[in-house]
């Protein structure tokens, strides 16, 4: 990345091709950053990098995936700069989110009307649950389910095989449901399950 001035042509291509995805970039940044201020910084850095690198974007390819790749790299750079390390997590490393003795998917047989119950949650509650998921799994759900990116593109952005994306998405949805089910219990929307691990 150089500090050369941005040419008019670069700016024109950037505003035409990348600017319409500003909301997508900011939304994704909000789901991965720890605060609103961090999210805006992350989104701004991503867009500035995209403008400087716009010559490397090939017309006809997926702008959303391209910007998301820049966003993810910028996010990782920021974590490293904060001297915090990303711990890549395999699925085997994460066997619970709802509690120490609660295996992932433990509540799946207890959902009465999944669609109805899930729609009772306000967006903020779903986002809160999403933010509690492990990094790699959260990124997968954001790309595949929120942003509706196809699995091949998501695999490209996250630099993992497509099979990993499929497993993470499936496993991540279960984890998310566990967290939401517990919220539903606390809110009295469903009856508490005594021993969900059985």
């Amino acid at each position, binding site marked *: 990345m150089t500090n050369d001035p941005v040419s008019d042509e670069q*700016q024109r291509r950037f505003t035409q091709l990348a*600017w319409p995805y*500003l909301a997508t970039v*900011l939304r994704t940044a909000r789901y991965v950053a720890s605060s609103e201020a961090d999210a*805006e910084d992350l989104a701004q850095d991503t867009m500035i990098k995209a403008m400087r690198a716009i010559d490397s974007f090939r017309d006809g390819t997926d702008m959303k995936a391209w910007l998301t790749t820049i966003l993810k790299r910028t996010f990782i750079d920021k974590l490293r700069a904060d001297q915090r390390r990303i711990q890549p997590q395999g699925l085997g490393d994460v066997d619970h989110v709802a509690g120490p003795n609660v295996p992932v998917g433990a509540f799946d047989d207890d959902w009465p009307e999944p669609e109805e119950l899930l729609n009772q949650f306000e967006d903020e509650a779903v986002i809160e649950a999403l933010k509690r998921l492990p990094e790699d799994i959260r990124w997968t759900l954001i790309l595949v389910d929120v*942003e509706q990116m196809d699995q091949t593109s998501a695999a490209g952005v996250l630099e993992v095989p497509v099979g990993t994306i499929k497993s993470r998405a499936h496993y991540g949805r279960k984890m998310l449901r566990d967290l939401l089910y517990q919220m539903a219990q606390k809110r009295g929307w469903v009856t508490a399950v005594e021993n969900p691990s059985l």
Partner: protein
Amino acid sequence: MKYENPNHERLDEATRRRLARLASKPVDTTRLEARLNKAIESQQPSNHLIQSTRLRWWRPVSRVAAMVAVVGLIGLLFTSMGSNPAIASTTDLVRVHREVMAGEPGLVPVANFAQATDAIQRMWPQAPKLPEPTVGQIKASCLHNVADHDVACLKLEFNGEPITMVVGHSREIVCSAAHRQVSRDGRTYLVHDRDGVRMVMISSQGRWVCLMGSLSIDELIEVADGLRF
């Protein structure tokens, strides 16, 4: 993915749909747009610096005079960079629309886009290049002021209904916060509804454009989709 239990497929599908709904949650990008516009301006090549390099070879008197001009230019540049883009309030925009609809005295009747561009250029030489509407008819043009910044206005007609199109420099004007977003064909529109006036806004290539009237949002987006930037 194979499911151990048919209920899990239902659960997964319901979870997918719930997460997908998050993408329709409005995202207020106003502050980020303002920050980016400022950052983009600062990335532009600084002509005054190029000029000052050339000045080294000028005669001393000319050099002093030129340096004074350069200092002035730098001052101007800093002044303009220090000012944030103003937010176009929907109240202001409704006022502009009503004045255009009422046939205010400054309204210049025009028959086509070339005439409209000429009329605007005569009134405001620094006006942004108007995006050309490819649907609807152009009826008149005028200048207005929104949030202390000049804007160019065109009166259009589409499906028998009048529309006001307002165009400003996006470095000077940004959209107000309360809006929802609609994406179509790679373009993102900000949508407002105020006092019965529907508005569709877009920022593109240094220009901020607002289309407003009593037409439906879909019809306004159809006109916006047809704008040639």
